[in-house]
């Protein structure tokens, strides 16, 4: 066994590639079988294809304590987090992946300071009028700036991932591959286990993670949709917040907020029960920071909604703005990126499958000719 995740990954995948019993589980193994040799770029790609469902670990005849000590979920988790670090832009900020909890806390502090400084006061004269606490232009300025930075950083990371894979940039937008990748992501195909779920947090299959991730993911999307609709209301229709409880932005945001609360709370609960054998404990901070930021964002958002006509509205607004700002700033430097690289890896997988059955130049996919 090697301490270097890439070396250890190569060692383990060489064993897997001579066995192949797991090829029915997910995309990682068919992708592996297209290759005869593994380099860091291959490892990074396979690691980002892996959903960490751990089925292959429980099914592995070579899992520890076997002397081959094959543990794909764990080693790919280690390779995966290193790949996040490698793709991060700008480079110096990659360090945020290493001490994610600390960085997230410091960012939250900073965001609170900015948010407090941006606030005009703590109370609003007319009930529920956020803009008396923080003017609309100030919010737009802050979040506009943050968004431009965040989108640039995410895009740079994505380009780095894609470049390393050796695929053409245009390949990313190939319609059939994009469609397949999106479908795999939106349905969480590889966590569904064809309806039986996956072996997370432990050996017995369950759909818990599939459901809770859906709550989280679609909750996030609903909140995003709520903000987008509100922007249309504001600019196109000239309707100013606050909006009524039954207005479209509020309904979307409320559903999304509760989805996020349930989803992230549940995912954290599952995480506490994760089989220690397959977990990469060094990532616990990063995972928890993202879960906590999503949870706090929805919690402060919902509190703000329900208490917007009380005297605590000001303090809640400042807190919510700071939390959202932290969430945004941390997007390129935390667990959020898994979704982006996963989608890209699945798109690449679809591209590879459609190309000829060749891995490296000249190699056909060799096969078990017989069976015992």
């Amino acid at each position: 066994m090697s301490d270097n995740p890439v070396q250890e990954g190569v060692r383990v995948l060489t064993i897997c590639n001579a066995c192949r019993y797991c090829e029915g589980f997910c995309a990682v193994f068919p992708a592996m079988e297209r290759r005869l040799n593994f380099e860091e770029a291959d490892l990074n790609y396979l690691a980002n294809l892996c959903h960490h469902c751990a089925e292959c670990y429980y099914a592995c005849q070579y899992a520890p304590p076997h002397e081959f000590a094959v543990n794909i979920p764990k080693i790919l988790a280690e390779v995966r987090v290193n790949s996040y670090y490698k793709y991060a832009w700008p480079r110096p900020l990659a360090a945020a992946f290493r001490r994610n909890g600390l960085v997230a806390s410091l960012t939250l502090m900073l965001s609170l300071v900015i948010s407090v400084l941006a606030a005009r006061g703590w109370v609003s004269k007319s009930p529920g009028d956020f803009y008396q606490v923080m003017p609309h232009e100030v919010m737009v300025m802050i979040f506009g700036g943050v968004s431009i930075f965040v989108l640039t950083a995410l895009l740079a990371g994505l380009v780095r991932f894609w470049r390393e894979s050796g695929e053409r940039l245009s390949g990313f937008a190939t319609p059939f591959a994009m469609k397949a990748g999106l479908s795999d992501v939106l349905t969480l195909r590889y966590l569904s286990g064809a309806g039986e779920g996956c072996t997370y947090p432990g050996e017995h299959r369950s759909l818990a993670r599939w459901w809770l991730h859906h709550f989280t993911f679609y909750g996030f999307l609903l909140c995003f949709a709520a903000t987008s609709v509100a922007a249309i209301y504001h600019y196109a229709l000239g309707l100013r917040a606050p909006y009524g409880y039954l207005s479209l932005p509020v309904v979307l945001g409320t559903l999304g907020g509760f989805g996020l609360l349930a989803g992230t709370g549940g995912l954290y609960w599952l995480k506490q029960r994760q089989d220690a054998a397959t977990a990469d404990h060094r990532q616990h901070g990063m995972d928890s920071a993202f879960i906590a930021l999503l949870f706090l964002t929805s919690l402060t958002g919902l509190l703000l909604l329900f208490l917007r006509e009380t005297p605590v509205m000001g303090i809640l607004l400042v807190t919510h703005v700071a939390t959202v700002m932290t969430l945004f700033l941390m997007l390129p430097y935390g667990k959020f990126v898994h979704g982006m690289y996963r989608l890209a890896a699945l798109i690449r997988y679809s591209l590879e499958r459609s190309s000829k059955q060749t891995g490296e130049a000249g190699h056909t996919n060799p096969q078990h000719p017989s069976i015992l």
Partner: protein
Amino acid sequence: MVLESAPPEFRGGNSRHTRNLRCMHDSPTQFLHDSYPEEEYFADLLRVTGGHTNEELARMTIRASNSCTGWMMSQGVRFQPSLSGTLHLARTNAFFLGGGKALMNAYYAAAQRRNVHVIYNAEVIGLNITNGTFESARVMVNHEPARIRAGAFVAATGGFESNLDWLKEIWGAAADNFLIRGTPYNQGKVLKLLLDNGAAPAGDPTQCHAVAIDARAPKFDGGIVTRLDCVPLGIVVNRTGDRFYDEGEDLWPTRYAIWGRLIAQQPGQIAYSIIDAKVFGKFMPSVFPPMRGNTVRELAACLGLPADALESTVGRFNQAVAPGTFDHSKLDDCHTRGLQPEKSHWARPLDTPPFLGYPLRPGITFTYLGVKVNQNAAVLMRDGHPARNLFAAGEIMAGNILGKGYIGGIGMLIGTVFGRIAGREAACFVR
């Protein structure tokens, strides 16, 4: 109650290393193409065993295979399309999703749901059998002795291939150089106890299924990944650098199982498969990287072979290769002329560096000796009568049906069919 001699991680004997089940079917099923009728199945079995089979039991087992996958799925076992590279098995063999360990996990989970008590690290060391009736077993549980009484006993303890002393009794010192492909827990102790208590033997007591595996494989439990399939693509020499058998005699799937014995008969029980760069990547990657040299001499040095001898063997081989059209997928016309032994197919000069070599040793898969059973899985005693409450299933009785040879997926079929029967009969007897 299940007494499992292994710890939980290695439970289930050699089933952990398996991956499919050969099933007859008269029409396509969810996992199997086309049809595989009883007659064809039985003909396949006759071919590999050369007639060393009990037709009544064999046909019963084949017929029972029809209902196996359905029953297995009801226990939580999942199947998948045949693995890549095994398309020739898509018609005959149902593959377990994730392989044999996943299958065992499903069975153990099913047993747990029915409150079956499993004791791990429990090795049976004595059987109290009187007049064909099982009374109790002496067991070491975590090195502590215990006595367990039961109304019936099902032996599912495999062969004796991991018992090195027993192998040595048959093969002599050569056995020291054998590698065991499967579980180290198949010690054959229950098999011996049954035979000592009057059970009738089945299967050749001296034979084992042995293939050529990478000599760097662990002593036990290397499983599928230590297999090497490059033999027909190059030449195989022994430790003096000489060829000793036709590497291209027949298609590899029908010949790979003779190479274990061939190597066992060579000095030091070691051989070396030598190929060149032309064919690298054309066979399943092995878990160990090949030794390599830019010249045959360099490779000989890496492998610890006499360089002059290897160079001369390769030179003579290259000169004897007749022109032909290489085709790995069939018996092509690439052969040698004037060599002893000849290579009948896939013979091409070894001329493209780097030259690659894999050391090979005999890898024992299983042994054939078992106990005789009847169609109720009851152990037959030497006087011909079945034991009252003593049953056997799996490798320990597979020799009744598979007296010789092997055909993919039949070991798991025999285990599944007789496991079900033995369980049913034991339960009926106790009731």
